[in-house]
C-alpha cells in the first residue's frame, strides 16, 4: 500500500486506461507557504482515472490548500501539479475538471435555472441544464431565486453547475458542511450515483464516516504531509491493526504468544482475543494449528486510526508508509 496506482477501480464499462495515459491528478513534491505558515510541506500523489478518493484530515491539515492548487486557484510555492497531463487552469478551461467548494458564492438575483444556464454557456460544450438540475435533485426549484434557497439547495446547485461540463474529474471540498443528516445523505446519494458512471472523484472531508462510506481510497493529511494512503481498511489497520477473536477451549496462552505477528494475547475462558498487525496470519495459524472456531476479525474504527495518525507529535505516524515515500 503506497500510492493508489495499483488499485484503480475497474468500471463495468470496461474502460481501461491505455498504457501511458495521463493520471487524473499528479502532485510532485508540492509545497505551499503563506508567509511563515507552511500549509503544504511536500505532497506526492497520483490519482488514477475512476478512483473515488477522500482527502481526510483535521482542520488546518492542508486539504483546502491542496485542492486550490489542483484547481489552479493558487500556485504551489514549489513542486508541480498536473491534471490529465496538463496545467490545472487548462483543465478547467477545457471542462475536464470541476468543483464544489466551500467558498464561492452564487448570485442571489438569478434563479436556479438561470445560474445553471449562465455557467453552461461559459463552456465550449456542456450537458443539458435540465439534466444537470435533475441529477442534482433540484428540478422542482429551478425557477426559485437563489437568494431564497436553503444552504443545502444552494450546495446542490453548485453540484449541478459542476456537472455541466461533464467533467472527467469532480472535486468536492467539504461539500456537506452545514447540511443536516438528511441533506447530507441525499447529497452523497446523488454523488455516488453520478460516480457510478466512472467519473473520478476527489473529496475533502473531516467527517470520518463520509470518507469510510464513500471513498475507495483515503489519503490522510496532517500538517501538510500525507501520513497514510490506502483503502479505508488499510488505513484503519495501519495505526491499530485488527483484533482476531475466536472460541478455543483449553487455550494455551503461552503457545499463542509465539504466533509471530501477535501483538497481544488475551484469554477469557473459552474466548481468545489476539491483537495483530497481520490478522490474516493469526487467523491462518488459529484455523490450521489449533482447534479454534467461530473466528471474528474486527478492525478498530477508522476514527481511532484518524486520531492516532493525525495527532501532532505522535511517533506512530512516522512508521506509516506515507512518510517513507
Amino acid at each position, binding site marked *: 500500500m503506497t500510492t493508489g496506482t495499483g488499485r484503480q477501480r475497474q468500471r463495468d*464499462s470496461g*474502460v481501461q486506461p491505455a498504457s501511458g495515459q495521463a493520471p487524473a491528478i499528479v502532485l510532485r513534491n508540492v509545497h505551499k507557504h503563506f508567509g511563515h505558515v507552511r500549509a503544504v510541506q511536500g505532497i506526492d500523489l497520483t490519482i488514477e482515472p475512476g478512483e473515488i478518493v477522500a482527502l481526510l484530515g483535521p482542520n488546518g491539515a492542508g486539504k483546502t490548500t491542496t485542492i486550490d492548487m489542483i484547481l489552479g*486557484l493558487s500556485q504551489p510555492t514549489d513542486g508541480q501539479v498536473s491534471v490529465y497531463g496538463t496545467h490545472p487552469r487548462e483543465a*478547467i*478551461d477545457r471542462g475536464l475538471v470541476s468543483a464544489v467548494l466551500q467558498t464561492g458564492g452564487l448570485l442571489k438575483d438569478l434563479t436556479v435555472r*438561470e445560474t445553471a*444556464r449562465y455557467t453552461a454557456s461559459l463552456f*465550449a*460544450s456542456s450537458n443539458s441544464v435540465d439534466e444537470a438540475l435533475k441529477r442534482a435533485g433540484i428540478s422542482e426549484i429551478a425557477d426559485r431565486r437563489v437568494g431564497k434557497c436553503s444552504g443545502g439547495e444552494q450546495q446542490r446547485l453548485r453540484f449541478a453547475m459542476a456537472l455541466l461540463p461533464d467533467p*472527467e474529474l469532480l472535486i468536492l471540498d467539504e461539500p456537506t458542511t452545514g447540511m443536516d443528516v438528511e441533506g447530507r445523505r441525499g447529497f452523497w446519494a446523488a454523488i455516488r450515483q453520478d460516480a457510478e458512471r466512472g467519473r473520478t472523484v476527489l473529496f475533502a472531508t473531516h467527517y470520518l464516516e463520509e470518507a469510510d462510506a464513500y471513498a475507495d481510497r483515503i489519503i490522510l493529511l496532517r500538517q501538510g504531509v500525507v501520513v497514510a494512503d490506502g483503502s479505508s481498511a488499510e488505513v484503519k489497520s495501519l495505526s491499530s491493526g485488527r483484533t482476531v477473536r475466536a472460541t478455543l477451549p483449553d487455550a494455551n496462552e503461552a503457545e499463542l504468544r509465539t504466533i509471530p505477528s501477535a501483538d497481544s494475547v488475551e484469554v477469557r475462558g473459552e474466548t481468545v482475543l489476539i491483537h495483530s498487525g497481520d490478522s490474516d496470519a493469526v487467523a491462518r495459524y488459529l484455523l490450521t494449528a489449533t482447534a479454534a472456531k467461530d473466528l471474528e476479525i474486527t478492525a478498530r474504527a477508522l476514527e481511532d486510526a484518524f486520531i492516532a495518525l493525525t495527532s501532532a507529535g505522535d511517533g506512530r505516524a512516522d512508521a506509516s508508509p506515507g512518510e517513507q515515500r
Partner: protein
Amino acid sequence: MSAPSLEAEIGAKRAPSFGGINLTVLGLEIRRLLRNRRTVIFALIFPVVLFAFVGTNKSYANLPDGHGNVSAFLVVSMALYGAALATTAGGAMVSIERAQGWSRQLRLTPLSPVAYVIIKTLTAMVLGLSSVLAVFIVGRLTGVPHMYPGYGYLWFVCALCVWIGSLVFAALGLFIGYLLPSENVMQFLGLVMAVLAFAGGLFYPLKQAAQVLQDIAKWTPLYGLNQLVHAPLLGGNVDVMWVVNAVGWLLIFVAGAVWRFRKDTARV
C-alpha cells in the same frame, strides 16, 4: 465516459472561444440589472423625471441655444447624467459580485478575468444606452425640445456622443467595484455622481458660479464630457482641454481598475 477511450474524450475537449463571452451571459446580466429596482429607478426613471421638471419650464425652454432650443440642450445634459449613473452602476456590479463570492465561483469556469471585465463593461454600456434612449425618447414625446430645420440629425449625433462618453463612467464603476467589495457601493456612488454632475455643470450653467468654482470644475470628470456632448448642438469650436479632461479621466479610471483587478486576480 463510456464508448470511445477516455483519452480520446479528454483530447476532444476544448476551451471556449472568446474566453467564454457569449450572448446567453450578456442576456442574463442585463436581466439581472433590470431586476434591480434601485438601478432601474436611478438609471432610467430619475433622469427622465429630472428632465420633465427642468427641461420643460416655459420661462426658458424655448429660448434658442445653438442649433436647437434650451430644452434640447437639457435633453442632452440629463441623458449624460443618466448614462453616467447607469454605466457606473453597471461597472460597480463587480463589487457586489466580489462581496458575494461569485467572482471566485467563476474561477471554476473557463471565463477568464479579462472576459469577465469585458462582459461587465458591455452590460454597463447596454444600461447606459437604455438610459440615453429613455431621456431622448421621453424628451421628444413632450414636444418641447427641438432642433432647427436641417439639424434634426443632431439628435442622433448627440445621443451617440453621450453614449460613447459614458464609457468613462463604466471604467469608474469598475474601478470602485474592485476597490470596495460591498453590496451597498451604489449608495455611495449615487452621491458622488450628483456632486460630479453639479461640478461638471450638468444641472446649472457654470458661468453663473463663482470664478473659483469654475476653475475647480474644469478638472472634474463630467466637465469635459459635458462640454463635448453639447458641442454638436452649440456648433462652436471644440476646446482641446475638454478632450484632455475626458480622455485623462478615462485613463485614470481604467488604470485604477486594472491596478485593483490585478491585485484581485492575484489573490484568488
